């Protein structure tokens, strides 16, 4: 997987590049907008990580230019501007995800994985993880043929986890995608929701499907 990183702060850039390398990605790093645009135009990348505030050409303009020449790779915007309006603006310009600085590297990694898998997700009416089956048509879930009673929000939570099975999803990703919230609640409510879900899904089984990844988030294995 080849990733282009455009980030004007060299130290941050090098640290992200190193981290991504260690996780098995090939990274091209550009410290300036114009270099980044040149790389993106002349190479094929699976994903671009783009700082919004860049000297010279700014991030949003680069995204617009790339989109106008049919470059369709997913783009993850990094920005010190954290507010919701800025985020909406970034996504409108053609970005696929938006991460406000400062962020945890694990969060960045989880989002990169989610973006790379976008479009390759299991389509169809049902999803599966191990012995767990989800029917998207009538919103039912079964494990080992046994029906699991879920509330609508629990169903969406489970669906999101299963769609990203074998990959880590962070609490922020869950809040954004399952609840559509862009803030971190003061108390860690997500953990409680997960433990509820876990008690419904994993209670009567030896194999625990929902794994907690300490300090990062959750993963469903199947």
């Amino acid at each position, binding site marked *: 997987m080849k990733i282009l990183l455009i980030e004007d702060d060299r130290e941050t850039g090098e640290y992200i590049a190193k981290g991504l390398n260690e996780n098995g990605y090939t990274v091209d790093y550009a410290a300036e907008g114009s270099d980044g645009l040149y790389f993106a135009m002349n190479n094929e990348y699976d994903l671009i990580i783009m700082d919004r505030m860049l000297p010279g050409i700014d991030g949003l303009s680069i995204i617009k230019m790339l989109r106008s020449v049919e470059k369709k790779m997913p783009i993850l915007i990094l920005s010190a501007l954290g507010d919701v309006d800025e985020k909406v603006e970034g996504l409108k310009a053609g970005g696929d995800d938006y991460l406000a600085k400062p962020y945890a590297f694990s969060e960045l990694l989880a989002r990169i994985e989610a973006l790379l898998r976008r479009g390759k997700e299991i389509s169809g009416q049902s999803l599966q993880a191990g012995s767990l089956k989800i029917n998207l048509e009538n919103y039912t879930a079964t494990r080992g043929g046994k029906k699991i009673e879920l509330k609508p929000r629990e169903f969406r939570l489970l669906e999101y986890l299963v769609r990203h099975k074998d990959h880590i999803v962070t609490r922020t990703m869950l809040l954004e995608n399952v609840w559509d919230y862009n803030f971190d*609640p*003061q108390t860690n409510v997500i953990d*409680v929701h997960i433990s509820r879900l876990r008690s419904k899904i994993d209670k009567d089984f030896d194999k625990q499907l929902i794994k907690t990844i300490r300090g990062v988030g959750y993963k469903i294995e199947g």
Partner: protein
Amino acid sequence: MLHTTAIKLSLKYSLIYIFIFGVIFLFLYWFIGSFVQDQTKANLIRESKKVEMIYNSRGIDAIKKYITAHRQYKGEDHRYYLLINKKGEPEAGDLKEWPPDLETDENVMNIWVAKKDIEGSVKDGDGYWPMITLSFKNGYRMLIAQGIRGTEDLRETMFAVMALIFGIIVILIIALGLSLGKSVLWHIDNINLAHQAIMNGNLSVRIKISDRNDEFDMIAEQLNEMLDKIEQLITEAKQVTNNIAHDLRSPLNRIRNRLEISLINKNGDDCGEVLEKTIGDMDNIIKTFNGILEIAQAESEAAKKSWKNINISNITLDVAELYRPLAEDKSIEFHVHITEGITIKGNRHLIAQSISNIIDNAVKYTPESGTIDIYVKENEKYVEISVLDSGQGVNSKDYKNITKRFVRLDTSRHTPGNGLGLSLVEAVAGLHNADLIFEDNKPGLCVKLVIRKQRL
């Protein structure tokens, strides 16, 4: 002092008034002058009619007698006569000869007469005298003249009086103007004094207010109010800065100590744990900064640009459901009473976060097996979101403090949180034209967000 606007303005207006008075006086002077002149003319015409009547009824000798008889009043009524015969020789009268440029017609003319042209000594001096002429059938001609001593006297006196009055008015106007300017300057000096003191760092100085209660006092009062507000804000800002420093010092110190100890025990057994705890502390610091930034954003009007109609019933229900499991884990009775379909104009994320902060607090401070009630209702004017808990509540004297940044009451010191939650709620309430109200729920706390409905 002359360069100040106040003095310049008052001098300018003084000059304008002086000019206006000057014009009025000149007009008055001209008007009175011409009035007197008209009177003289009318007198001369009347006199000429009288003489004509004498001639018509009694002939030329009667006229001679009339003129001769007048001699005794000569100089007193300032009237002079001259009668000449066909050849132009004087027959009777006071003038020595017929003025060469005097023509014979019905009109009153102003003719130059010198003292030497009059027989005997008279008081009337040189000047253009108004005179009227008469021609009789036998070829005799006659002139009646009015000496100008009287009108001249009147004119001079009038001029003197007017000049005097004018002079007094000029002095008064300038004096008044200057004093007005100075009184304005006094006010401005007052403002300047306060301004300089404040610039020098003494924020508690206020502008002196006179007892005149004029518009300057009104401005001064408003400026003082503004200064009060600024002082209060600066004090609060200082407080917040201090609190930030204070709040961050302990986790930073913790991180430092932890790293130092792990440096001493180089064996590296607990390295992972140290790093994990450090990251946890760093995350909390970042959370605090994010919290501060979020409040700043909610306080800026820029947050209004993405306003939409939002369904407050659904938002509250969603947030409540987000917290329900948390409450149920503490065996809290969690009741949600929501009137459906209530909408307001606002920022969905900020409102959701505010409601989340309020409910978060309620769950945090309600003991096991307590109750929490959440209401959303509306009337014609307001939309009210209220969260009632059965916790230990807050002393009513602390209501105004709990929304301040980083303020954490002693009773909540040991619960997690950064003391920014209600500050954000208050900022969001301000943005949405809403009031954040605290009430005693006996026992517990009732937090109300009362949003005034926007007129559509």
